[in-house]
């Protein structure tokens, strides 16, 4: 294997379903493990993943998700989303995947920068204390673009 040309990964996480949050976390952490810089910008529903009260209660999407292989109407029944979420969490635990809160700690300790989107924070009427302590700050999208300050930077919207 050759040396990667990727030097920095910037992720924008706009969703709060477990599969999207973990996709962002695994990629951001994987980058750090390879010696690549990484940062995550949490916007819109992605903010749920860094709200102290909400981050351990994220769900997998059972409605409008064809890969669940269940009729959309069934996915909307009470309890189905909770059950699917429980099953997925169990599988992830088997793979030694940390829970959302612990994963954020690992990311922060690994040097991954965590940012909240100012516009979305204002829109949802959130305060700094509603968000995790590990957060590096609240930025505008312009501020976040300025984090792309070197060759080999890539930006990914999730």
């Amino acid at each position, binding site marked *: *294997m050759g040396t990667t040309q990727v030097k920095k990964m910037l992720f924008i996480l706009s969703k709060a379903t477990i599969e999207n949050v973990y996709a962002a976390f695994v990629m951001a*952490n994987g980058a750090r*493990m*390879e*010696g690549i810089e990484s940062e995550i910008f949490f916007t819109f529903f992605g903010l749920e993943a860094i709200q102290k009260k909400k981050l351990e209660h994220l769900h997998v999407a059972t409605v409008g998700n064809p890969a669940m292989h269940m009729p959309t109407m069934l996915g909307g029944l009470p309890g189905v989303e909770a059950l699917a979420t429980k099953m997925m969490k169990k599988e992830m635990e088997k*793979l*030694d995947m940390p829970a959302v809160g*612990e994963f954020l700690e690992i990311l922060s*300790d*690994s040097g991954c920068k965590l940012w909240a989107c100012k516009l979305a924070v204002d829109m949802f009427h959130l305060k700094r204390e509603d968000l995790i302590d590990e957060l590096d700050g609240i930025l505008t999208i312009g501020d976040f673009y300025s984090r792309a300050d070197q060759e080999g930077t890539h930006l990914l919207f999730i």
Partner: protein
Amino acid sequence: MKKVIAQSEIDVNEEGYLLDFQQWNKKIAEELAKEHNISLTDKHWEVIDYIQDKYKNEEPLSVRGIKNSGVLDIKEFYGLFPGGPLKVSTLIAGIPKPKSCI
């Protein structure tokens, strides 16, 4: 691939990882560390011992495992082995690169 290091010949793969742990010794580790601009301290050796133990017991290595190891925290781990701590520390310790994504 053959590689001559610290007056011995070792077999390595294309990424530089030792193919046979029996060929590893502390002198080789020091030289491999130098190639990554690391000079090994007591703390480095403690980590190397820990990950070699894990390898001998066939336990998978992960960053989360390091966090719960009681040997060091993740910040220290990144500080000791810059440029991808699991990758670099296992190379120096003479064991295969972990297959873990987390």
